[in-house]
């Protein structure tokens, strides 16, 4: 019964994630995606920016989907996930230890994201500036890993292919050439 509290292998969780695509299409002709919800949240604030002037009711389903992710993750994390540390490859552990990440417990490194470290210059840079890049980049690119990665690539869309290649080129270059200097 270990599957109840343990993480699932990629060949179980991957196909189930893919099944979200037909699930949303059959339930109401909706295309899987998460990042437009951020645009809708900004559109709730009173402003005169063109990008946020539209009928928010059309995007309400995506806000509900995002709320569902929070709720589903909360229930699963608190009742069906008992893990001391994420079982990453030994080579990754060695690389991170060499970069000064000593504590490999939990979902994210304590040195950067714990309640104590979060308000340090490093913690604020990784969370606030990182979050800013994530939000700005995702709407500029027109979608995220779900919208471009899962949905777009399943449709063999050229725009999504370019976007996903850029996500991975950006992330790989940043990991190898910038991260060592800021950790």
């Amino acid at each position, binding site marked *: 019964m270990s599957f109840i509290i343990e993480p699932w292998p990629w060949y179980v969780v991957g196909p189930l994630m893919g099944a979200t695509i037909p699930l949303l299409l059959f*339930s109401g002709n909706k295309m899987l995606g998460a990042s437009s919800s951020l645009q809708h949240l900004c559109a709730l604030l009173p402003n005169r*920016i063109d990008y946020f002037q539209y009928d928010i009711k059309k995007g309400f389903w995506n806000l509900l989907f995002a709320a569902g992710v929070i*709720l589903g*993750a909360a229930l699963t994390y608190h009742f*069906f996930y008992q893990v001391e540390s994420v079982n990453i490859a030994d080579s990754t552990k060695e690389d991170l230890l060499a970069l000064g990440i000593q504590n490999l417990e939990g979902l994210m490194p304590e040195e950067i994201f714990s309640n104590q470290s979060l308000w340090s210059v490093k913690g604020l840079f990784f969370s606030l500036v990182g979050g800013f890049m994530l939000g*700005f980049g995702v709407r500029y690119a027109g979608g995220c890993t779900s919208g471009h990665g899962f949905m777009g690539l399943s449709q063999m869309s050229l725009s999504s292919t370019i976007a996903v290649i850029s996500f991975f080129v950006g992330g790989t270059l*940043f990991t190898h050439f910038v991260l060592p200097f800021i950790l």
Partner: protein
Amino acid sequence: MKQTKFLLAGMFFGLLIIKSEALSWFRIQEMFRFQSIHMFGIFGTAILVGSISVYAIKSLQLKTIEGELITLKKKPLKPRAQIFGGLLFGFGWVLTGLCIAPVYALIGTGYAASFLILFGALAGVFVYGWSKNKLPH
């Protein structure tokens, strides 16, 4: 309420984000260092299931549970936006260890960092919307 199904679909996706550990900073490092099949296997199998579903829905002209014909739209091609935006998103993915759905999932776990990350992301979207017309698309 008619739209409850989207909340349920989101809950299913949230469950899978936890069970896949796709919201872990450590997993994303492992991915960008190409040291495990885990994340790539998830993308590959998800896209395989997605592609087969999309192909079947289109060729059989399948309908929604409400009887409406399913129509799929592709995202518009704007190469410069997808490249510049995509690279910046990649940087943010490394720093936070999260893409967008995992930001929401992390809120569910209660990590305080998730609220700062969400605030940063909303600020980024707001500034993008404000500067959109001055950026190359």
